């Protein structure tokens, strides 16, 4: 029994070693969203298309994506073609035109196509703060019951889409 005690430091070292080793290679930039597991926050935003005000009550009751984008955001240019693909395959996407100018956004959609079921303007970025957004593009998966189940920071592409798609139910 006493002998065993001498091996305690070694045991502690091994346990810590395994724990630290498992943490290696993890994405240090990854940040969990405080919103996951919660309902989409209440909002009233004006639509880009018809200038009408919409609230959280108007959101779809099927699984859908909320995509924050802006014409000022270079990565959104990269992401746009893939969003078009998703839209064509029937994925409902609500676009939030984040901290953008209306005329630029309209022009963008005319030139590049519109992958969004609806586009709401968040000019000051207050809805973005309510959603815990830190930049664009950022995409949230909302499930059937209106609860945010996943948040993806950065571009959605063919590589990460299968994982994101798994949350859409």
């Amino acid at each position, binding site marked *: 029994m006493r002998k065993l005690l001498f091996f305690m430091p070694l045991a502690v070292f091994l346990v810590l070693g395994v724990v630290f080793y498992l943490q290696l290679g993890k994405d240090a930039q990854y*940040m969990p969203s*405080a*919103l996951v597991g919660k309902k989409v926050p209440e909002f009233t935003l004006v639509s880009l298309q018809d200038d009408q005000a919409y609230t959280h009550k108007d959101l779809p009751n099927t699984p859908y994506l909320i995509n924050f984008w802006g014409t000022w955001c270079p990565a959104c240019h990269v992401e746009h073609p893939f969003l078009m693909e998703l839209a064509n395959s029937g994925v409902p996407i609500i676009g939030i035109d984040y901290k953008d100018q209306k005329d630029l956004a309209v022009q963008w959609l005319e030139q590049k196509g519109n992958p969004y079921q609806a586009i709401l303007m968040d000019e000051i*970025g207050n809805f973005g*703060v309510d959603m*815990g957004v830190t*930049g664009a593009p950022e995409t949230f998966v909302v499930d059937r019951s209106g609860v945010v189940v996943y948040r993806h920071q950065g571009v959605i592409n063919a590589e990460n889409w299968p994982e994101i798609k798994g949350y859409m139910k």
Partner: protein
Amino acid sequence: MMLFRGFFLFIAVLFSLSTFAQEQMAFSSELNKTRYQSLVEELRCPKCQNQNLADSGSGIAVDLRELVHQMIEQGKTDQEIVDYMVARYGSFVLYRPQHSTATFLLWYGPFILLGVGLLAFVAVVVANRKRRGRDL
């Protein structure tokens, strides 16, 4: 000498540039200004990870500074502002971790370990003394 002085000035300006991340803001009282300063130093920028709101020039940090400013002027308490940020960005935005069951070990783990060590030390000393007493 002149050249040296010029170079020194250049370096000094270079270093002071980084402290210009903040906008000029009007506060209704000196107290509000102090509260603002301490809050933006306590809150972490959710985008840049290793900077507080005060030092960061990223877009979201500018927005959040403005929000903190507005909330202070609206008469919100510090705790309300901190809760507001935590509700949106998680406890990640706090440079000082909150006391909770999840951070219990973080706060008290070292003291618990110290206690265990002390107990072990005392136990060993007592055991040695007993053994020596027997040998004599």
